[in-house]
């Protein structure tokens, strides 16, 4: 789905993550590439505090624009 948005020329992507408490490393790698190579700013509204905590712990909260949803 995110790939479709990129293909359609999305200038930025906002994700609302409702019920995930973790994020696989392959998804992290995909988002890192999206921000750094494709230059598409990312923001995330994260509803589960454990996922937000995880991204903060991994120093990814700023890169992914993560905030509490």
């Amino acid at each position: 789905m995110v790939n479709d948005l990129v293909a359609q020329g999305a200038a930025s992507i906002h994700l609302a993550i409702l019920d995930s408490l973790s994020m696989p490393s392959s998804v992290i790698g995909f988002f890192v590439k999206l921000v750094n190579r494709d230059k598409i700013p990312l923001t995330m509204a994260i509803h589960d505090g454990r996922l937000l905590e995880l991204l903060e712990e991994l120093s990814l909260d700023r890169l992914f624009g993560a905030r509490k949803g």
Partner: protein
Amino acid sequence: MALLADQITPYAREITALLVEDDAASRRLVGAQLKGVFKELILAADGQQGLAAFLDRGPQIVLTDNVMPVLSGIAMTEAIRRVDPKVPIIFITASMDRALLVRAINLGISAFIPKPIVLDNLVQALALAVGMLETRDLQRRNTEQELALLHFREKYHENQQAIAFRKELSILENDYRSRSFTGTGAGRGEWVAQALYRPRDIMCGDSYSLRRLPDAGQLVFIADAMGKGLAAALTTTLCVHTFNLLVDALAPGTRFDLGAFVGHFTRLMRKRLLEDEVLPLCLAWLPADEAVMETAAFGMPPMLLRGPDAITSVRCNNPPLSIFLDEFRTSRHDLAGTRSVLLYTDGLNEAQTAAGALYREHLTPDFRASAGLGQFMEAFQARVPVAEDDVTLVLLLRVDGRQIWREDLVVPSRLEQLEQASQTVEALLAGCRGLAPVARGEFAMAVREGLLNAYEHGSLGIDAEAKHRLLDEGLYFEHLLERESAVDTAIALRVTLHAEGGNRLVRVTIADPGQGFQQGEAGYGSDDSMLLHGRGLKMIRRYSDACYFNEEGNALTLLKIYRGASDAIDENQPDPDHHHREHQEHRRLSGDPLHGQ
């Protein structure tokens, strides 16, 4: 007659046939027609003889008349079918009523040949039956070959995976598997490193190394490559190998520079990462001359530092390594009051507990409540019965707390003296309040093994090869007594109890007069395998929280860590003279028996 043989597939000459015919003339005639067709033709004069021949000789094809004395062809067929439902049976008969035909068909008769026999009918029936046998045999051989091939492939892959795993282990270097480390800086203290590497698959994404630097500092490395399986294993192998190569290439005599090292390392690794690949890893440097730890952590879970009063969670200072990351930060942490440091991969904190929660919720309390790696992993496994990811962790543990009491023994190299010394240690351990009886018994066994090793190898100079040979020959015990009467040596044994924050630490050092051994340069698990008998070393490692040798390899120290009793009675109990008096019989030398060890 040769005509019939020529018309049947050559496969017929590999099989045995049974001809059952009560009429002697017919038997001779058909027998003559079948001459040369089969490898062997067995002749029988009635159904009973035919059945006996079938059971005795196991022919692959049966030709039979039906109307015969004693036992008819159809009755014989029923008996044969009970033991062999598949053997082709050809009926040669002058008459066939409807009921018999149905019965024969239900018994799986392959073909019917009316009497008098027409050669073409015989050829056709035999060709059909032999062809079926040949096809069946071919299928069986194919199946056997396929199974053999599958078995071979499975064995091949198993073997390859085992070799690959050994290779992976050989790349993980741990310079501190069998030695403690200290430094020159004030408050630096003595530490041991405990590492746990528990891959979920043979090849996995986790790796670690603990390296001794040329300037006597320590560098800890731990990585958790993205994903699972071969791709992750390839990345992590490259990563840890690159790390170790760079450590090996450090110039002697120069002070280590973490920033420069990490810059070099990450530049090399970024060349090997894919665009969408991230690589969480951590490097932690303990300089020899300062009580600090400097870290560069990339997308790793927080490391935990246990201080005298609290546990500090230190978050990583960089996102995971990727080809896009061209800057990084390092951080310094004061270790002066730190008693232990835990670094781990996310297989630990992201593991799902039996209650459905993430283990991260329990990590800090369990770390706080655990005295060492063994207790910590027991707590983890109690909550996470089946870990779904690789788990790797490195625990740095300070082991130089305040000494509460000390007991020195000098044990003459005699078997009965070893036993006495073991009992003395057990009595000392029994006075350690808070040390659970099971743990106490296990640690006492580890000490026994250590003493036995010092006696056999260090004092009497018996190497593992000679020991095995003498055990095989049943001469070992006699050899020990003979050797011990020829030497006048002793083993120095020191037992101390230390207070380490809320922990108590029993330290037993066993020093023998032997030459020791050179700790090798080889990697995981092979650094001291030459010294102790395999089972003895395993037992020592299993039943102690840490064990390590001195530089010479002739003094072994075993540690047992436990939570101190709340009333701290150990601290009020120290009466070293009490122990000295009680075990005076061991003392033969004056002064410090471990001096110089």
